[in-house]
């Protein structure tokens, strides 16, 4: 891999003046301009991503009067049933929502690419929910989910199904949040998968068809393996987004009923901005960060495993 890129780089530099002292100079210049081009992004990344993380890390060892208290905030959190519950709720939420969203996004992308007569129109319709800010779609869904006079129960009754409690039931609230988050998420993630499907080379597909492979076999053995990159991106990015999901909980359930939707992100928000307990929120953020990095790291590891295996 690294040998590949160094060859490319040499070739890039060699385009101007091959095999001389100026070759070295050109390579040097290419590196320099790369650094220059990347530096604004790096500076922003350090300023707005890395620096706050470092600050949060330090804050998590202080108390609200900025005195050093060591691991006290972590001890308080790990002894707190409510925090442990919010970690459990967040993990369960992600185990459910990510596969659902990715499978549905893939299905949607296949429908648009393979099935739709007017793909452009369907693509637009599919993207419409993404255009609505999550806060606003949360409000709309909140009204639709109302158990006594909401439109969803009205539809269920009209087709002869029993009405449901939705957001007001500890057993259904998380599922309701998954439904509304997926309404937005599926359209968004399918965008990347549509692009991925279009990038599968036509000749490979034709070769598979000539070999007698039907649609599903082509999909499973040819197209999906060739879509590993967009799929990996969607998996990792979707997981990260859902581990940090916040708006619907803040607007609709505030963590309830009976803490069934108390996602860690909401718990952090409440500690920081409602209770003004910034050190506790900082410690919670560090723990969440560790969980996110562990999960995303595991995903990368497994994707690489599969690659070297195949």
């Amino acid at each position: 891999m690294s040998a590949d890129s160094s060859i490319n780089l040499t070739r890039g530099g060699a385009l101007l003046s091959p095999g001389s002292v100026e070759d070295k100079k050109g390579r040097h210049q290419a590196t320099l301009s790369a650094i220059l081009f990347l530096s604004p992004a790096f500076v922003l990344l350090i300023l707005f991503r890395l620096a706050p993380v470092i600050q949060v890390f330090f804050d998590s060892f202080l108390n609200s009067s900025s005195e050093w208290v060591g691991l006290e905030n972590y001890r308080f959190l790990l002894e707190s049933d409510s925090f442990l519950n919010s970690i459990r709720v967040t993990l369960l939420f992600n185990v459910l929502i990510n596969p659902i969203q990715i499978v549905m996004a893939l299905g949607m992308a296949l429908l648009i690419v393979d099935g739709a007569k007017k793909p452009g129109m369907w693509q637009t319709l599919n993207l419409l929910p993404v255009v609505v800010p999550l806060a606003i779609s949360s409000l709309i869904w909140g009204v639709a989910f109302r158990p006594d006079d909401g439109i969803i129960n009205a539809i269920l009754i009209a087709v002869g199904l029993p009405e449901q409690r939705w957001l007001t039931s500890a057993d259904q609230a998380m599922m309701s949040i998954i439904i509304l988050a997926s309404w937005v998420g599926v359209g968004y993630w399918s965008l990347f998968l549509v692009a991925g499907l279009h990038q599968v080379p036509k000749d490979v597909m034709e070769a598979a068809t000539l070999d007698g492979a039907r649609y599903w076999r082509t999909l499973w053995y040819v197209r999906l393996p060739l879509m590993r990159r967009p799929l990996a991106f969607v998996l990792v990015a979707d997981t990260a987004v859902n581990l940090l999901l916040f708006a619907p909980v803040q607007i609709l359930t505030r963590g309830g009923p009976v803490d069934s939707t108390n996602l860690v992100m909401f718990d952090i928000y409440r500690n920081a901005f409602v209770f003004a307990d910034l050190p506790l929120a900082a410690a919670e953020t560090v723990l969440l960060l560790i969980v996110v990095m562990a999960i995303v790291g595991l995903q990368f590891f497994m994707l690489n495993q599969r690659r070297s295996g195949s």
Partner: protein
Amino acid sequence: MSTQIPGNGPRSWLGATALALILCGTSAFAEDVTLNFMGPEAPAAMEKVIAAFEAENPGIKVNYENVPFNDLNSIIQTRVGAGDPDPDVYTADQPRIASLVKKGQLLDLSPWVTEIDGVIQSSIDASTVDGKLYALPISTSSQITYYNKDLLDAAGIAHPSIDPSARMTWEEMRANGKEAMAAGSEFGFMWDQINRYYQLQPLAESAGGGSGVSADGTAVDVTNDGWVKAMTFYASAFEDGLAPRGVQPGQTKDVFANGQIAYFVGGPWWLPLFSRTEGLNFGIAPHPYFEGGEMATPTGAWSWGVNPNSDHVEEAVKFIMYAALHPVGALETAKGFGLPPANTTTFDVYYTENIKIDGVADLIKSELANTSRIRPRTTGYVEFETFMGKAFEDIRNGADPADALSTAEKAIERAWSRN
């Protein structure tokens, strides 16, 4: 211009005038102060008092920023707490003043406001911490019962009296609500701020459970018999389908305005809305109480305070004094706000001139004097209110009242242990 002899001829006169105008313009510009004012009310509610203040104080402009009620305190926390000079003035929920003061987010007004006459004492108390005034009381509040005359008539239920000594009990309201539903009403009765402590404190007080916080503000007790009794009643309203689940505060008034419910226990600030709602035939009565229990009603509202980091402290104090204490200013504030003014002189003028519904002013005055219970004054109010709100929502959705209260009590104690 430069070739002309100065002071000679009309052109130079014009030039001098233009120069003077420019100078005037810049100096007026330099004196102009813009105050940023933040609160949860719709901008229209603040227009009147801001216009009146600006007319009286040329050179000071007030720019109002409307934020959602649920986010107000976190926005204060993020902005004022971080040392931002904006907003200069903000609305402070009275029970949160103790905690805002503790965090250094309200300016001590005692050097500026030496005399404060004609303001309801409980509102001044609610704005005072350790003997110092930190905010000026703007409004007070109470709650009344609205009833839908058509729905009661259809069920053959007598209209309740407006006399505070003949008020309904919660038990009666529940029984009547069931009858009204049998006769066609969609729901029986419900509360305005359906899952908030402000609205539900009087239920526990009336059932003998107290406010839930000890008098010194350091201990919490929401698991006593009174609280459990009150919350069991509250739970039954939703369990029996008398009151709807899932409806958020702010959406509840529409249920009454649409004629879907027989009784609505809510704020007097809905009077103008209900009065102009076509086809809604309603009457008003006092807030209910539990049979054999004490009569208790909610109270407390807004005070306006100044951000200690403000760059325009003097102008900011001038503005809140105008809005709270000036006879014209206080009335303009009340007109826009719709809450009963904390200023007693304004209170009478406001109700005689603006709310032309018989008996409402006397009823509110009587409640404020005799039955109102202020919310606990404790630096831990935010945690208390948050976890109680959670418990109410859980109970409303079917959690066991005693369990939910016990969970809340433990959570509050744990959060307070961090202070």
